[in-house]
């Protein structure tokens, strides 16, 4: 047995082999292919062919830039709204005295996952439609005289994203607040801090890991969202995910789609870097 193998057997690193193989085959290889494609030319039917070119990146930052901006903007707004709505909810759940109430409320947060995401998003189409539930109710109540244009707007996409990703904000914050020792709050009050100061100086910093994890879990899938803008956004709510999807079907442009994907990945990596650094600084403090 070679020395490296016996050493690997002893320290248990062989246990990681299946995972490493999995990642190399299904993550690293596709990543390299996407990266290579993004620098290649478009052939008949949208496939990638030689020679190499930078055209697709040029187009990404030229024509596609406004959609990239819109996607990042919508994802950021989704994250902020989820945080504002999710933090109090997570706090509420984790501070219930009775275990049963806590379990039931937590269960309710997870309940929507029982239904397929696509079906839930379709349901929003019926709610937001011109003759949909919301418009009919408002019309019948006499609050509006004409149906509001809700569907096929950026607002519809925002509603769909917040709805879809709110649980991803609530759950990590819940886990953080659960571990929070409330005697710190008493101590802060004893030392003369008011509620706001206590929250900002004690509660928020100590639950920050949950907040950051929640933000990452909401922002990353939001920025690449495809189903939600496809079903709710129409022409006004188009996001980068839709345009990437278009490049891979029919006679699209796989190299361009790859370049768009690489830029998307860079955006996600940047937001993850923010997460890592914020977390580290947090722990250091």
């Amino acid at each position, binding site marked *: 047995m070679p020395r490296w193998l016996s050493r690997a057997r002893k320290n248990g690193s062989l246990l990681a082999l299946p995972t490493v193989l999995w990642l190399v085959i299904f993550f690293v290889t596709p990543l390299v292919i996407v990266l290579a494609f993004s620098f290649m030319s478009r052939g008949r039917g949208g496939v990638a062919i030689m020679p190499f070119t930078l055209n697709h990146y040029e187009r990404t930052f030229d024509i596609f830039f406004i959609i990239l901006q819109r996607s990042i903007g919508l994802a950021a707004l989704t994250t902020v709204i989820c945080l504002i709505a999710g933090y109090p909810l997570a706090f509420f759940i984790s501070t219930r005295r009775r275990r049963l109430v806590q379990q039931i409320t937590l269960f309710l947060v997870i309940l929507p996952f029982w239904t397929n995401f696509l079906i839930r998003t379709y349901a929003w189409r019926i709610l937001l439609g011109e003759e949909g539930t919301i418009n009919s109710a408002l019309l019948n109540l006499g609050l509006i005289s004409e149906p509001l244009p809700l569907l096929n707007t950026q607002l519809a996409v925002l509603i769909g994203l917040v709805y879809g990703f709110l649980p991803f904000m609530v759950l990590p914050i819940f886990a953080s607040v659960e571990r929070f020792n409330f005697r710190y709050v008493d101590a802060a009050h004893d030392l003369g801090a008011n509620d706001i100061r206590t929250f900002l100086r004690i509660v928020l910093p100590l639950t920050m890991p949950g907040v950051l994890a929640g933000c990452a879990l909401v922002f990353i899938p939001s920025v690449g969202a495809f189903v939600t803008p496809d079903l709710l956004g*129409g022409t*006004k709510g*188009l996001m980068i995910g839709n345009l990437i999807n278009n490049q891979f079907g029919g006679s699209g442009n796989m190299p361009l789609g790859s370049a768009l994907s690489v830029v998307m990945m860079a955006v996600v990596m940047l937001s993850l870097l923010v997460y890592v650094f914020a977390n580290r600084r947090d722990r250091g403090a």
Partner: protein
Amino acid sequence: MKKILLLLPVLLLLAPLSLAQDMEHEPWTCPEGYEGQTLSIFNWSTYIAEDTVPNFEEACGVTVNYDIYESNEAMLARIRQGNPGYDIVVPSGGTVQRMAEEMLLIPLDMAMIPNVANLIPDLLGAAYDPENTYSLPYQWGTVGVGYSTEVFPDGITSWNQVWEHDGPVAWLDDRQTMLGIAHLFLDNDPNTTDPDEINAARDYLLEKGGNVVTVAADDGQVLLERGDVDIAIEYNGDILQISWDCECDDYAYAIPEEGSNVWIDNLSIPVDAPNPELAMVFIDYILDAKVGADLTNYIWYASPNQASIESGFIDEEILNDPAIFPPPEQVANLFAIIDVGAEAEELINNAWDELLIFLGQ
């Protein structure tokens, strides 16, 4: 047995009716010499009448193998790998062109297909196979506008009504069709490969698309049904579907007078077909007035067969539905989409991306 006896009086009653029709039409007869041979057909699923194949087997004394596919790509992939033994395939327009270029089809011998004279002349010589060297139309349909009859009590006759409508409109996510419609207004060839013309078509659509709320992939009819749009540019079959489902007159389908896209599925013979002669006999059989009419009566697509239409074999209900059979004067204005090649494809793809991006600004 009892059931058959009960049916007998009914059959006897019907007999004079069918006799009356048969008097004008000689039933199709098989040329001699094919007894005992085999024909293999590769067709789309649910795209033939129940008795089409058995009647052919009986008339010619042959055995038919019948296989189905779900998409042009699936069929193309099988034939590209080497024809596994099919004598007949049914590719759509662009796919005919592609297969011809890749030498995957063999030329038809029109001398063996006298019934070619039955076909609607406007559907022959389409851009994807200008001489009908490799293909003859099997069934066809159109892209047009589905609209709410409440919003448009007088109907829609022009694309300008679509562009100028003060209300939500859904376009079809079919780049070549949409740009092709713009080309009609700009007096360009709908299948042009000229970069300036493609960009001009893009700009034309951008200018006319202010009322477009969504560019729908395959569900414009659903948006129309739900009242989210007043007009949906769609395939005729999809609009027909919601009219049937609701059993009402709330929706109608029209092909604007300027023209629109026509899709045609075609009978072709793939390369290395084991029995191309029998395949041509089968094509002739399909193009018979009665056989073609029976086919259309069963699957409810438009027949390309002028003789079927004129003979009265096609059900009135189907024939008089403008969503299935456009009036003849409109057929002349329809354009077929062709495979434009890699370069134009990229230009069209770019123009379409830009259109999608700027429509929502």
